[in-house]
């Protein structure tokens, strides 16, 4: 399927050219529902849970999980947004990333923080997120929810909730959105 997937891109402005669709919108929705159930199972007391979505790709998934947790757990969960640009360890190796809004609703002291992102790859974004989170207090526990785990970790980081494991080659690009997951390449159009 030759399809061009539009996605707000801040990784150097290279366009994503999709080769094939790996999950469709229904499958993404089902995976998120399963993840929400797993979150409720593991965190019986949702009262202390705060979702923190990583800008920009994690935000739509954070929003859907927030809605699902309210339905399943019968409780409104706060959703924070976190931009990790200023915390990256590769700032001097790539173009300066454009930052997006950060809004953390409350102190994270003693909270169960569930970080939400679209694709887990090297783990460096999540490493940056850990450093950032500590500025809002010391969470009791931090868990990680990702739509796609594509492997190739460069740091000892593992997800707690995974929508789909997708072993991939390093040169391939994976885009995960609410309406589907695609594999393809990044390059000039």
């Amino acid at each position, binding site marked *: 399927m030759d399809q061009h997937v539009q996605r707000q891109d801040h990784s150097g402005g290279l366009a994503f050219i999709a080769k094939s669709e790996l999950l469709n919108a229904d499958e993404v929705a089902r995976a998120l529902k399963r993840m929400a159930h797993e979150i409720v199972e593991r965190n019986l007391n949702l009262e202390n849970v705060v979702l923190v979505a990583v800008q920009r790709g994690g935000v739509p998934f954070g929003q859907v999980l927030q809605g699902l947790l309210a339905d399943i757990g019968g409780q409104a969960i706060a959703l924070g947004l976190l931009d990790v640009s200023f915390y990256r360890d590769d700032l001097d190796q790539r173009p*300066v990333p454009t930052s*997006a*809004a950060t809004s953390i609703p409350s*102190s994270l002291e003693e909270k169960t923080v569930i970080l939400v992102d679209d694709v887990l790859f090297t783990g460096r974004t999540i490493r940056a997120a850990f450093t950032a989170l500590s500025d809002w207090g010391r969470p009791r526990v931090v868990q990680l929810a990702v739509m796609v785990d594509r492997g190739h970790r460069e740091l000892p980081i593992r997800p707690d909730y995974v929508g789909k494991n997708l072993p991939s080659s390093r040169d391939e690009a994976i885009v995960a959105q609410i309406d589907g997951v695609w594999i393809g390449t990044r390059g000039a159009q």
Partner: protein
Amino acid sequence: MIETIRGQNLLSLNDLSKDAIIEILNEAESFVEVNERAIKKVPALKGRVVASLFFEESTRTRLSFETAAKRLSADVLSLAVASSSVKKGESLRDTIATVDALGIDAVVLRHASSGAAEQVSRYVPHVRVVNAGDGQHQHPTQGLLDAFTIRQTLAERRGLDPIASGATLFEGLKVLIVGDIRHSRVARSDIAAYTTLGAEVRVAGPPTLLPQSVAQWGATLAPNFEEALRWADVVGLLRLQRERGTESFVPTLNEYTTTFGLTQERASLLKPGALIMHPGPMNRGVEVDSKVADGPQAIIRRQVSNGVPVRMAVLYLSIAGLGRAK
């Protein structure tokens, strides 16, 4: 024309494109949020060294820049000119070479000579130079923070997201700049920023304090001050720079206030929504009546608090993403 200051010097606003200015204003929005946190510090420039070289006194700009650098986790080398070898006759070139030898990534430079920042950028091409005011030439970060403050205030009033609004709030905006245009680097930077973003700029002041040709700067002369006050959406007041001998250009300060001071009477001519700005430090009772300066139309305090996030954005974009100091 410079399209982005990423990895670049910031010497003047004259050569910055609209996109380059908007990029800085957008980045500054993120740093406003950082400055509202309990821990107002991010590690973006950890391990980088910023030299703050103020060859001319300026407590507030210096504090603002140094605070910005520290909140980005950079190390700050601060040269106190009054006690330095500059007083012993060392040249600008030698001073820069000495500081450069310590290993620096960027210089924030304030100097009494126009063009000093550009000169320094040629001495140390491997170091990013941020102009913090050079003679009567430019004060780019002041122009940027003034533009940022206008966009922030107008976006808030109209319930818009400032980033999404881009430059649209400046399109057709009528800005009047009043006072010592001739000696003012703030006026030059403000006019460059506003006109690049799409605003219409007029200037007013005693003929002795107007430059030969404002048209070259993209502004026009307001023939009648009172009429221009009725016309303006934004009034930018300039300080009478007594330390630069401005007083010899006006008969008396009192006469200046009578003819071009923003008195309460004159402020009543303004549109109800018009904004009043001043880069500080204010001569209360000279350029502006004290009550007017503290009134609801004045956004002078906002200008001051926006100084740090705007300078953080400039330092971040200019220095990050660059190889480390060798």
